[in-house]
Structures are given as structure tokens and as C-alpha cells.
């Protein structure tokens, strides 16, 4: 898979009043892999994903998604799962799906239905009435019901109950189109995602500390991804 990288960052800075979330990040993300974006809370993972999704603009430096700066066009190939509850609580589960589906040509109805089933979500229930874990499952369904070339999942497992976590990992894996889809998963604890990642990017305090092939790094460090994280981000 030596095609063009799907995401390119060159010397990207992102500053907020009183904080510098990303400092000089340069990164090439190869297409068609599951990428683990790892690092402690506050390391800039979320900010990085939001830049790719076009929700933030860099303070300086360039961000390219599919060769373009994030705009309306790049948003058609990006499926973004935020860490927060972003759905309308007054909509039903089915209503949320129908709303999002109206905007994306790559929406897959069958897959959406299958995922809803798999996640145990009742179509008629109001989003506001769902538990936190169920809302997280619904968000994931929305992110995976499309055949988007770039899928960005921001802490999909954080604060989620164990049964939901397993479901989420299983859903990600079963829907993944190896080679044709790039999935970037950000997390601060590796646990059940240990064997999922093909490519690792370790962030700390807004800079990239390490990037590379997961298997190669396992061999080099003689440690698990969790262990590598602990060692590099000591």
C-alpha cells in the first residue's frame, strides 16, 4: 500500500487562548490502515482529529486530507466520531440516522440496520433517553454506517462500560474495509485495541514522539503497544 498518504500534516501549530494544543506536528498517514493515535489526555489527539475533520483550522502549517485542505469536499470522504455527545437529544435513534444519511452519498442502509441491531439500539427511542454507553454505541453506528475512506474515531472507548466496549471493537473490526479504508482511533489506554493497530502515532504535549509500524515496533521494543507507550511517554 504505497499509495499517497491520506492525511498529511506539515509543521502544524494549533493555538488557543492560553494553550498550544499542537506544536510543530508533521505527519504522513498511510492509507488503508488502522492507525492508533496514542497519548495521554491533553496531548493533542482530539485537536489533531478535529483538524483532519475540518472542525478546526490550523493556526499555522498545512493540513491535507486526500490532497486538499479540509473543506466541503474533504468532508464527503471523512467520517468523524467525536468524543462528546453531539446528537440532538430530541431526535429518535432512527431520526438521527435519517438526518445524517441525508447528507452523505456513501451511506449504507443495510449496514446501518445491521449495526443498529448489533448494538441493540431501538430505532424509536429518543437519543436523550439513552444511557451514556448506548449513546456512544449510536455515535459509532453513525460513523461506521458509511463507506468513508477516512474514519476518525476520537476515544471511542473512553468511559464506556465493558460490554459496550467489546461491541464497539467488534463493530469497528467487522466493518473495516482493509486496504480501502483508513481508520484513525485515538485513545489514551490501549487495552482491547492492542492488536487492532497497524500504524502507531504517539503524541505528547502537542508533538509527535514516535510513529511507525506496530509490529515492527513490537519487535524493536520487545514490548506491547501499551508498554511502548509507557516507555516513550514516561
Amino acid at each position, binding site marked *: 500500500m504505497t499509495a499517497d498518504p491520506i492525511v498529511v500534516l506539515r509543521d502544524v501549530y494549533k493555538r488557543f487562548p492560553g494553550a498550544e494544543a499542537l506544536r510543530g506536528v508533521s505527519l504522513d498517514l498511510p492509507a*488503508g*490502515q*488502522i492507525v492508533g493515535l496514542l497519548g495521554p489526555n491533553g496531548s493533542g489527539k482530539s485537536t489533531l482529529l478535529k483538524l483532519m475533520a475540518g472542525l478546526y483550522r490550523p493556526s499555522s502549517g498545512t493540513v491535507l486530507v486526500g490532497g486538499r485542505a479540509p473543506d466541503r469536499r474533504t468532508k464527503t470522504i471523512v467520517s468523524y466520531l467525536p468524543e462528546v455527545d453531539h446528537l440532538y437529544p430530541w431526535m429518535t435513534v432512527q431520526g438521527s440516522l435519517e438526518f445524517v444519511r441525508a447528507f452523505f452519498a456513501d451511506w449504507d442502509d443495510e449496514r446501518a440496520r445491521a449495526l443498529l441491531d448489533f448494538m441493540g439500539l431501538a430505532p424509536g427511542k429518543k437519543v436523550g433517553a439513552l444511557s451514556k454507553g448506548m449513546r456512544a454505541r449510536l455515535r459509532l453506528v453513525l460513523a461506521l454506517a458509511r463507506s468513508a475512506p477516512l474514519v476518525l474515531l476520537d476515544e471511542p472507548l473512553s468511559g464506556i462500560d465493558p460490554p459496550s466496549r467489546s461491541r464497539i*471493537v*467488534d463493530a469497528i*473490526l*467487522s466493518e*473495516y474495509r*482493509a*486496504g480501502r479504508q483508513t481508520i484513525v482511533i485515538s485513545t489514551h489506554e490501549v487495552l*482491547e485495541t*492492542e*492488536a*487492532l*493497530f*497497524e500504524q502507531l502515532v504517539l503524541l505528547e504535549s502537542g508533538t509527535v514522539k514516535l510513529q511507525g509500524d*506496530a*509490529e*515492527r515496533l*513490537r*519487535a524493536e521494543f*520487545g*514490548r*506491547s*503497544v*501499551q*508498554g511502548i507507550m509507557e516507555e516513550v511517554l514516561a
Partner: protein
Amino acid sequence: MFGLNGGTQLQLRFDPERPIYQQIIDEFKRAVARGDLKPGDRIPSQRELATQARVNPNTVQRAYREMEWMGLVETLRGQGTFVAGEPALLATLRAEMADEAVERYVGEMRALGFSSQEILERTKRSLAQVKEGGDGNDG
């Protein structure tokens, strides 16, 4: 990992500290050496294994490719992946794995400072105990 029914019973016990694709290959070899997999048996498709073991599909692909390159498996278009039909495969693999296991064991013992004689003694004693304790099949 590779069950008798070609993959429906999968228990993943991989060591996250070592390359996973290598462990898949090793486990495959072990399954063949044990007789759980025979030449011509179908093994889980890459997708099945990836989903059930929760491993990146590309990692599984890498393992399968190597196994194919090593002559351990063959993929028939539209039908799946099968253990290579080589009759001598079983014997070869068992021999290979046995040699590796012995080398590892001897190496460890030597590192602890035991002489060849001592190693032999201890091995005999251990084998005798196993015979008494059980039928040796479930270790």
C-alpha cells in the same frame, strides 16, 4: 486458535509483546504439529480470524501470506485457505517445532548454569512425573 472445525472455536492467547503475525504463524504450526489441523483442512478466512481474534486484518493477511510463501497453506480462489496437502508437512513441522522447543529449553537451563548431565537428569525426572500425574495430553 485454529480449531478442529476450521475456525469456529478460536481462543486468542497472544502475547502483545511480540509481533502478532509471527504468533499466528506459530500457533498454526502448533495446531498442525498437534494434529488438530490436517493437510487439506480449511482454516478460517482472514476476515473470520481477524474478527474473532480481534486482530487487525492486515496483520492476519501478513501472516497468511508468509504461511503461503512458506508452503504451509494454499489459498484456492473462492473456496478459502487450506492446510497444505503435503503429507510430509506434519512430520516436518513437528520436527521443526520440537527442535525449536528443545533449543529454547536447553538454552534456558544452560543460562541457569546447569551442565548437560544435570539437564538430562532433570528432564528424565520430569517425564517420569508427567507419566504418573496424568495421561500427558492436557499438560
